[in-house]
Structure formats: C-alpha cells, structure tokens
C-alpha cells in the first residue's frame, strides 16, 4: 500500500546539522508544490464518474486516456515553462487519480475519505478476534511451507487467500454502495489490506523458492 495518507507520521533520524560533505546538491528556487496527493481531491469527479465503489472500468480507462492525451508533458515539450509546469501538475494528478480508482482497495479507501470516514489504517489496528486467529493460522502455514520449501502448499494458501479476498470484496461493495455502513466498510478494508500484504509475502516466498530451484 502506498502511504499517501497524511495521518502517518514517521520519526526521522535526527542528526545535528553538520556541513554536508559526501553529497553535493543544488538548491533550486523555492517552489510551491502542487499538491496532487491531498485527500480532499475528488478523483471520481476528475474523470466524470459517479462517486461510488462499483466502477465502469472501461469508462475510467477511456477518461484517463482522454485527459492524459490533453495534459501529458509530451504534448508540451515545445511549450513555455509555465505551460510545462501546469502540464506536469495535471498529468501527475491524472495518474494519481487513475491509480487510486483502478485498485479496488485504494478506491474504497478514497471513497471513505471523501465521505469523511477515517479508515484508521495506520492507527486503528483493532481487528475482529476471529480475523486475528485466521491471521495467525495463515502466518504459521506460510512459515511451514517456507521451511519445507513446499510450493504446492504455498499455492494452496494463495488460493485460499484469493477466495476469501473475493468474498470480502463483495461485502465491502455492499457496505459502500448498498445499505450503507461506512464503519463496517472501513473494518473490511483493514482486513483486506492485511490480506493484500500477506499475499505479497506469499509471492515473495514462492519467488525465493523458485529462484533457487
């Protein structure tokens, strides 16, 4: 998951300011960054799509291409610096919007943000007890499969995960578009995000084993 949410605060290593020796860098003119990542932007509106979870993928793709065709920096290679800057900002925004809407989990998260619901992805780690149990089982299964270098077991685990994911995605859709229950949707979303990360871990494990075969 990308960290576009401003809620997450990371503590930076603090080193006393010292003269820079190793790396040389140039300080460019002070600029006001155009904020393509603020949560307040309505990505649905950018593409003229209704604000809901169910999405017309083809309409999304078409709108994205139409917008990029107009705003992409390649169209402004010969233009003035002012136009190039505006083009960069718009093209950046169009990409951000498209990537967000294309991915079901990011789309759900964006929708909830637009509705003013805090998904609590960074802060609220509370998950239902049965899901926590499930997590533990999955983790154990993964460890075991890795130890045994058992590709078939990994495959089975991946399939189980995929099945549960699609079931939960349906719940998510109902909570968002049907009988609206934004808090329940946020809960589903937290589980789904865990599952997405876990499925990447399975892929990594698979790759590790295949790579050394």
């Amino acid at each position: 998951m990308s960290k576009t949410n401003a809620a997450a605060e990371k503590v930076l290593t603090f080193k006393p300011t010292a003269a820079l020796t190793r790396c040389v860098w140039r300080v460019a003119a002070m600029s006001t960054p155009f904020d393509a990542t603020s949560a307040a932007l309505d990505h649905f509106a950018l593409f003229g799509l209704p604000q809901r979870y169910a999405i017309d993928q083809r309409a999304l793709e078409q709108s994205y291409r139409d917008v990029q065709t107009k705003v992409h920096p390649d169209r402004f290679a010969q233009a003035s610096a002012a136009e190039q800057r505006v083009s960069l900002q718009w093209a950046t925004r169009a990409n951000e919007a498209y990537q967000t809407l294309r991915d079901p989990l990011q789309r759900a998260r964006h929708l909830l943000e637009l509705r003013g619901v805090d998904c609590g992805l960074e802060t609220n780690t509370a998950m239902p007890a049965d899901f926590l149990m499930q997590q533990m089982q999955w983790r154990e299964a993964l460890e075991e499969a890795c130890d045994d270098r058992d590709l078939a077991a990994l495959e089975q685990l991946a399939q189980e995960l995929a099945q549960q994911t699609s079931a939960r995605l349906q719940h998510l859709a109902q909570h968002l578009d049907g009988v609206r229950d934004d808090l329940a949707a946020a809960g589903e979303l937290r589980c789904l995000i865990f599952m997405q990360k876990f499925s990447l871990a399975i892929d990594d494990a698979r790759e590790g084993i295949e790579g050394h075969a």
Partner: protein
Amino acid sequence: MALLQIAEPGMSSAPHQHRLAVGIDLGTTNSLVASVRSGTAVCLTDAQGRALLPSVVRYHSSGAVDVGDLAQQSQAEDSRNTIVSVKRFMGRGVSDVAHIENAPYDFVDAPGMLQIRTCAGVRSPVEVSAEILRVLRARAEASLGGPLVGAVVTVPAYFDEAQRQATKEAARLAGLEVLRLLNEPTAAAIAYGLDHAVEGVYAVFDLGGGTFDISILRLTQGVFEVLATNGDAALGGDDFDHRVFCWLLEQCGLHQLGPRDTRLLLTKAREAKEALTLHASARVTAQLDNGEVIEATLTSEIFTDITRTLVQKTLAPTRKALRDAALQVSDVKGVVMVGGSTRMPQIQQAVGAFFGCEPLNNLDPDKVVALGAAMQADVLAGNKAAGDDWLLLDVIPLSLGIETMGELVERIVPRNSTLPVARAQEFTTFKDGQTAMRFHVVQGERERVGDCRSLAHFELRGIPPMVAGAARIRVMFQVDADGLLSVTAREISTGVEAAVSVKPAFGLADEDISRMLRDSFEHAKEDMHLRALNEARVDAQRLIEAVHSALEADHELLESEERAAIDCRIEELQSAMKSEDHRAVKTATDALNRVTDTFAARRMDRQVAQVLKGRRVNELDF
C-alpha cells in the same frame, strides 16, 4: 485561402515547418542517431555510410579526441587513454562497478561518480559520453542540414536517478536540448508497435553490451503503456566477454596481464562469442606483448556452460516484471528482442522457453531503439498532427524513499508508478525544540538504507521549536516524465514557510559542470558567449511562438489588463533579443514566462473541461 488555424495546446500555429529533431541511442558498445524524414524513421550515417558509431573515445595528449572506429582501432595500443563502455561508469563510484580491476584505466574516485585520468587530463564519464554525443549531433546537423531543436536520448529502463541525471548532463554538455530521456525498451516498443500495428501485451527483452532491461507494455490504438519494467543495469554482452576472457586465462595458464594484453584478449573473447552465433566453435589466437602466442578453441557447449548463470540472471527480473504487471506468461502476446546480445542462441532459447513462444526477431536489434527514439522526437518536436501522434505512459523503475530511524527506508514512490508521479509523506521531530531535520533520499527495493543507492542529503532548517512529535514536516517527491526527481520539504503545522527544493546532482557540483562546459568550448573552439546568446535567443523565440499560438487559440480567457501585461512582456523580450546580452534575454524570457502562469493554468483547465464535456462533473478545482 487563408483559414484561421486553431493550434493544439503546446503546438505552434506558425505555418508548419518541420522541426529538426533526432533520437539518439547512447549505447554501451555502439551509439546511433536517427531522425524522421518524410514520414519514415531512418538511421543517419557517417561519410562512409556507417550507422553504428562505436562508443569508444580516445584522448591524445595534444588535446585531440578520436571517437568511434578510429578510437576503437587503437584500443589495445593505447588502452589507458581509450575509453570503452563508458556507460557502465555513468553515475557510478569505483566500488559500484563490477570487474573494475580489469578495466585498464587510472580511476580517480570522486564522491558520487568516478573519474578517469587520461593523458589529456581527468575526465568524468559525463564528459566522455558528451564526446560521443557531440559527434552524433554534428553528424545529424550535417545530414539534416540545420541546427536541431532537440533530441530524445535513450537510457536503459533500469537506470537509476544518478545514471539518468548523468546522461542528461552529458547531452547538455554536447549542446543538445534534451526533449526527453526515453527508456530503451519503450523506444523499441514504439518502433515495433508502429511498424507492425500490433495491439495487446508485449514484452521487450533488451540485452545490449552493458545493460539488461525487460519491459512489459500494453499497446492499444494510439497508446503505449508500460505496465512494469525490471532489469540489471550491469549485465550485458561485456559480461559474456568477461567469462570467455577468464576461460582463456585458465586455458592458457595466464595470470596478471598488462592493460594491452587484457584489452586484446577481451576483444578476442568478444569476437569468439559473436562467431558462435553462426558457428559451432571458434578459434582464438593472439600474440601477447611478450611475444608468446596463445591458442584455444571455444565450442558452443563450453560457451553455454560458462555463461549459464548470466543467462539465468535475465530470468529473475523477467519474472518480477510480470508479477509487478500482475500478468501471467500466457498473457504476453509476443517478446520483442532488442540489443546485439539477443543474437546469442542460448538467450533466444531461454527466452523462448520462458515465454513459451518464438521470440520476435523481425527488427534490426541494433537500430530499433534509435528508430523508436526518432519517432518520439518527431512527436515531441510537434511535427505530427494531433490524432496522428500517440500517448506514451512510462514508469519509474526503482522505488524512491527516505531514511528513517534505525537506518530503515520509508518507501515514498513505489517502483513501476506511472510517470509523472508525486507522493507526499509526513514526518515529525524526534527531540524537543528540534529546529532542523536532515533528510537522506535513497533509491532501491531493499529495506535497509545501506542496501539502497544514496541519492542526496538535504536539510530543512528553521522549524519553529516545539515538543518532540509536534512538528509536521511534509516531504514531497515529484518525478517528472524523464524519471527525474525533485524533493520538497515544508513544515506545515505552524504555517511557517520553510521549504527547500533539491535536485540531487550526484557528485557533479556546479563548479564541475562549469569547468566541463569551459573545457568543451575550448575544445570545440566555440565562443562561449556567442553560444549562450544563441541559446537564449532560440529559447526566447520558442517562447514567443508558444505564447502567440496560445493567445490565438484562447485569448478570451484573459482580461484586457492581463492581455496588455503579456503583450508588454513580449515586446520587452523582443527588444532584449536585439541586444548582445544573453542575461538580459534570459531575464526577459523568465518575466514573460511568469506573466503567463495564470493563463497557462486556465487554458489547461479548459482543455480538461472539454474532455469531460457531456459527463457529469461536480467540481474540478484543486
């Protein structure tokens, strides 16, 4: 009949004149320049009719420089001053380059990027590359009959920030206006896609002299969309040569060769390798410096055997690219083979086996990248009518992040994000009253800072003193269409402006760059002032044209005072252009640029609104 033409945004409405633009493939082994002439991309040749320019530069103590075939012939004779495969050193330090001990050069380790001590003085890889680019530029200008408006220069897709920045710097040094840095496999995909009018998901497998790229693209009508890319910026034909070289040493019981013998045997190794594409075995004979004659026979079996791990090394990135694209092997309709090293039968075989289909070899693997770059240059120069051009969506190959507590990397821009991309992340202070923060920008996929490439350090000062954890510092990464990064940091909780913008320069300080520029002028016997003036005038003229066509198309977006202000700046710029002072031209250009800011923004708003006309739009403001 004079009809009023309405220009597309960014395109001049001036009577259409063909702008001279080229594509340049700056390769590890060979470089090429191509251009679109009467609608077809062609490689431009030298006086002898050769398209390929060996990427070899020889420095003479007199200050003379040979580039290309002549330099290549003197490789063994003057190996210390004859730089081959310089691309491997771009944006790299001494410790980054594999087998550097076999390179017969006197390296100077400098922060960020190594340098080479030659008989003509210390040279940066950027300068060496600029020599190659300069020859190609001269070839193009002679062949096309005029100055170029710009060039698309290709880079391996897997090149990182430092390598891209270095390439752009080299082009600048060679007096080229870089229209775009274009990824090599993407360039190949453009050439292939347009030539064959194909649609669907394709892979481009590009194994050249020093780099390996694999890109997965979706080609649809008028759109080239890169879904994922991966590779190895230090894997190519050179490594195969090196394996054969090591095998030769072992066969002939040799150790500790001088630079001349090393060069000689590396060349022999390469010849043998290339011969094996068509023959089952190759004989190697060479006379060493001490008179000793060595002989060996390399068979296909031995060659395949000693290079098996290298071939394998291309498959892991291929798997990763597919995975990042969320695709299966079966989704790929075809694999386009690019780069001289894909001629090796074992590569053909491995790729065929992996994808379960015959690789596509119907384009000249040496030229396809330059041809694709030329086609893109033609679009960027504005030579194509709207609707006749295409949209190119490329990605960033490696993740970008920032160092956090415990020497860990906080990823900010994930790899394979479509360009341009911006991402922000908030950080906070660690100590009470902390007023400054030091940032370390890194690139790579690993979690530990030490395993990633360090791009830049910068500091944000003037944070108002607060308790630990109260400050909110927003760090913003913006990666442009060339894949180049700029970083901004600001404190937002108090509204106090404390922002810096950094462009990592990767070891090239401004003084370095000015010295190189000075040297290059002396070398080219050009008048620096005259060139600066010319460049400023060209920029100014381009801007005036762009503004005129914008005014013609959208003048009603301006209030009359706004219009008057713009007209006034145009006049000022026009009179500045008559002066001999390039700084005055530059200042007036900047002023005109500034005064058109709002106009540019309004025009774009309108463009986007038009796209969405007829659709429901709630709000479109940022």
